[in-house]
């Protein structure tokens, strides 16, 4: 039953893990705003940020693969925005020209390559790599392997600004993703929750009870794995009554989903009721002042890291001002 894990927290005992979660959240927000302030002319700023981020990652002792995994999730978005810029941005000077010949011969070879890919992909594990290899092969085919008369000729010009902007967007999104995964990988969901409660506490002045929301958040985080287990149990119980999601007709499927949903609701309501009673018995009053078991304290390392982040933020603003004034 260890399948159910929530969040991406990676346990370690590094300096980054020990930092105050409030400081971490503030730093991430500052850096994110900073990234958006950096103008395209000051693209080298990104490399400074990237270098610092690398140092943070090494300090956090989180394996590199964890970050790659979060990048992998947005590969499509990154590639799409990059290719979009290259194809449609037509300012600046022409850097390269690609001519694509479309003929019956090239289409046929393209289809052939795709069929081979579809056939091989069942047997190999590195599907993504294989796909890219085939993709490149196809580009080469479309460019050079002109077997018969081409009936359509398309030439794609790549402009310098398109390349520039595409790269600018790519690295910006990459930085944002790595930064936010650094936060979630090194901060426990519960700590994050406590920190959010602190940071949102000014809202109490507007008569919004942030402590209640924080409690709600932590309870729901706590109960996600429990409800997962409960669902699995009910699923199995209904399976022994002949519920089979794989093989039944659509009409039956709807009924079978109901047979899962109703018990789920019953169980969660019961749990909620029991929990609220248990909390009340132990003296919980919504919105009342509570003391904390783990009081967050700002230490020297927190202040130091905040100073570093504020300096970086300042650097971002300076680069913006310098570009706007026209110095750079």
């Amino acid at each position, binding site marked *: *039953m*260890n*399948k159910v894990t929530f969040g991406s927290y990676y346990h370690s005992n590094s300096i980054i893990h020990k930092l105050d979660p409030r400081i971490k959240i503030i730093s991430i927000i500052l850096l994110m705003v900073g990234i958006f302030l950096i103008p395209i002319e000051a693209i080298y700023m990104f490399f400074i940020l990237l270098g610092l981020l690398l140092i943070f990652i090494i300090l956090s002792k989180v394996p590199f693969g964890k970050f790659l995994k979060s990048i992998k999730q947005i590969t499509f978005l990154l590639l799409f925005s990059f290719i979009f810029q290259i194809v449609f941005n037509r300012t600046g000077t022409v850097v390269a020209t690609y001519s694509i010949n479309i003929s019956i011969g090239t289409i046929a070879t393209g289809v052939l390559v795709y069929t081979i890919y579809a056939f091989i992909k069942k047997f190999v594990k590195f599907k993504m790599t294989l796909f890219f290899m085939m993709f490149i092969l196809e580009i080469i085919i479309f460019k050079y392997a002109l077997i018969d008369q081409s009936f359509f000729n398309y030439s794609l010009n790549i402009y310098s600004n398109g390349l520039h902007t595409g790269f600018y967007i790519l690295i910006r999104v990459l930085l944002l993703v790595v930064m936010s995964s650094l936060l979630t990988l090194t901060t426990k969901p519960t700590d994050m929750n406590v920190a959010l409660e602190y940071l949102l506490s000014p809202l109490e002045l507007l008569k919004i009870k942030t402590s209640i929301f924080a409690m709600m958040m932590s309870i729901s985080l706590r109960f996600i794995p429990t409800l997962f287990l409960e669902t699995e*149990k*009910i699923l*199995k*119980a*209904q*399976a*022994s*009554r*002949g*519920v*089979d999601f794989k*093989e039944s007709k659509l009409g*039956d499927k709807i009924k079978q989903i*109901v*047979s899962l*949903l*109703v*018990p789920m609701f*019953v*169980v969660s309501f019961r749990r909620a009721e029991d929990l609220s009673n248990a909390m009340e018995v132990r003296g919980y009053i919504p919105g009342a002042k509570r003391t904390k078991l783990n009081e967050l304290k700002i230490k020297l390392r927190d202040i130091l890291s905040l100073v570093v982040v504020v300096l970086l933020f300042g650097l971002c603003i300076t680069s913006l001002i310098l570009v706007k004034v026209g110095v750079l």
Partner: protein
Amino acid sequence: MGISFQNVDFSYYGYSKRKKYPNILKDICVNISGQSEFVAIVGHTGSGKTTFTQLCNGLNLPTSGVVSVMDLKLTHKFDGALKPIRKKVGLVFQFPEYQLFEETVLKDVAFGPSNFGYTKEESIKLAKKYLGLVGLSEDLFERTPFTLSGGQMRKVAIAGILACEPDVLIFDEPTVGLDGKSKKELMNLLKVMNEEYHKTIIIVTHNMDVVAEFTKRVLVFNEGSIVCDKTPVELFNDSKTLAKYSLDLPEVSRLAVMMKEQGLIDFDQVPFTTLSLAKLLGGKYE
């Protein structure tokens, strides 16, 4: 026919050639016939009892080895339809009342049979039959299951499995959380199913009195293996095994042993059921 386990290993991490995961069940070999057996499964929490029951009807597939259920061989590669197995082997979970969902009791019980291909009328007929058998009065048939008491809800849930008419019935701690009267009714129902309908009944239990009184065979689980496969009388006479796996004697036997120590009665064979103690005491109890 029946259920047979051949060198079955099971791990919740699934099958893997390269890595060796800790197994919940280790090298299980056991045969349970599909007719008229009454088997008790005892053992500590976490000894693999529940996992074993879930292997019996294909809810879990073995990591290695073969589970044969009614001529169907289940291995880690099995990819066929599991429905026929679930039709033959009915599994009643712990706290089965959580599986109720329909608007009326009758509809809920008929849900199982209709899934297994019975027509609407047949399902309702089966539902009525088994609701009667578990002893639920007819005026409750049209009630919403959620308004029933805990004991009644459990009866409905059990009827829901019985109505699928499986050959083998597996109960995971059926008497937990029931009052004395309901407990007795439930166990008598199982006895009827076993003796009159010739069903094989497998129960997971911690209650040794139930084991002594009703079952004909006991499987003792310890850390994922079956360490003992005997009749209840043989097991309770084997004080070494009992001590080794810290199993209790039935309450009745403990009482009898205590009475012997006090010099109140004398016997060579410890009585394991209420009836045998009563016979010992009075000699004329019928």
